[in-house]
């Protein structure tokens, strides 16, 4: 069944016809040619497709496009202002927090979403006091970024980059 929906991606409005089976990820990659979000597993098991969906970090491979008519999406491409990178992106370059680059846009979006969560005082699995203040230690950053797998093994540099960007 085909359905027409609207999406706003990186500030650009799009009208498109999707199969009800089409995921938000495939709608962007295959219908709109927006390939900044990557497909690494297609089952919510790697985080490569992470974007900011209506303001929050979210995987897009398990979201049906038809259920997100009208959604506002920001990808890693949209976080940069032309040549000017988002501080997280610049920090990843400075700390070489990437190698093959395939998980990287998802790491970027996840980091940006994660920082907003920490800013809002959200605890994590490794927060000792669930009701206390949040301090973004390396352990906290690593835990909060664990939904983004990186096979090249850039984790240590990703954590360093985020630590730096927060400072």
């Amino acid at each position, binding site marked *: *069944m085909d*359905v027409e929906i609207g999406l706003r991606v990186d500030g650009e409005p799009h009208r498109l016809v999707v*199969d*009800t*089976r089409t*995921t938000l990820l495939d709608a962007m990659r295959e219908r709109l040619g927006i390939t900044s979000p990557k497909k690494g597993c*297609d*089952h*919510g098991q790697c*985080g490569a497709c*992470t974007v900011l*969906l209506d303001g*929050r*970090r*979210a*995987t897009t*491979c*398990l*979201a*049906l496009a*038809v*259920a997100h008519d009208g959604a506002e999406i920001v990808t890693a491409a949209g976080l940069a202002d032309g040549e000017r990178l988002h501080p997280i992106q610049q920090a990843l370059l400075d700390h070489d927090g990437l190698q093959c680059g395939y998980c990287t846009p998802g790491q970027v979006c*996840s980091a940006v*979403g*994660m920082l907003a*969560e920490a800013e*809002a*005082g*959200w*605890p*994590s*699995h490794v*927060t000792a006091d*669930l*009701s206390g203040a949040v301090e973004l230690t390396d352990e906290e950053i*690593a*835990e*909060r970024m*664990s*939904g*983004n*797998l990186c096979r090249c093994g850039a984790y240590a540099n990703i954590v360093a980059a985020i630590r730096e960007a927060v400072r």
Partner: protein
Amino acid sequence: MIPFDYQRAEDTRSAVATVTARPGAAFLGAGTNLVDHLKLGVAAPDLLVDVSHLPFDMIEPLAGGGVRIGATVRNSDLAVDPVIRQRYPMVSAALLSGASGQLRNVATTAGNLMQRTRCPYFQDVTTPCNKRRPGSGCSALEGYHRDHAILGASRHCVAVHPSDLAVALTALGAVVQVEGVKGARSIPIIDLYRLPDDAPQHDTVLEHGELITAVDLPALPMATRSTYRKVRDRASYAFALVSVAAAVDVERGTVRDVRVALGGVAHKPWRARRAEEALRGAPATDDAFRAAAEAELAGARPLRDNAFKVPMARNTIVATLRELTRREEP
């Protein structure tokens, strides 16, 4: 993946009526598990009724001191809710140990409870599985079952329930509010989930078309001192090998009341009633914790490759209770 129709539910009544009337229909929440199943061919609905926008996104106080959690409250929002964090820390801890930040941001409360086992054979339509295709056989029984059940399994199914949240809710004695064509009903969560017996295709007692609208937490003062300990292979982003949700009320070295539930060990979140009984009135010591854990696990029937879960569950129960009671002492 076969094609399906999609409807956005206007209200609960019509959503329930629509799904009830159509055998091939299913409710869609965030889709973080259902879309998995669509891709794998595990589920093949002909209609999805999207209930993620129904007005069940509130966390509200209940008369009597409890808390009502709406079915569409996202896992993140539930985990970080100040009341939940303060009064039911095991709920927050369970949620925060599950999945990843980006999945928790979309996954719903009811969807979390209704997620299905991650048994690899259940998810692989090229292998037999009684849960997916009744009567085809259980591939895990003699196959890869390191992650599987040690309690309450049958020869028809040895899968475990994957939810962390449900384990905490089971320890708390939460009650699930359900809407059906015949009206509303309340189901204690302990009764929501089934053991596999000879019908593992049914994870829960819900009938086709029944919709979870809320989960009620009881006023349970002792839950302010509760926790959730998850043992897993990876430090994060992994399902439990064994998990323990526990709350304990100790007075002058004696256990007055205790709640313990186990995850990763059974087809349902496992309320450790035998352990609880053994502990009430017992001294809050490692020996008593161990004896209680052993009483609970006496009925364990591990498989060839998951016998480790018995000592792992025992040790984790002891460690969790030790941690809680140590914390409680001034």
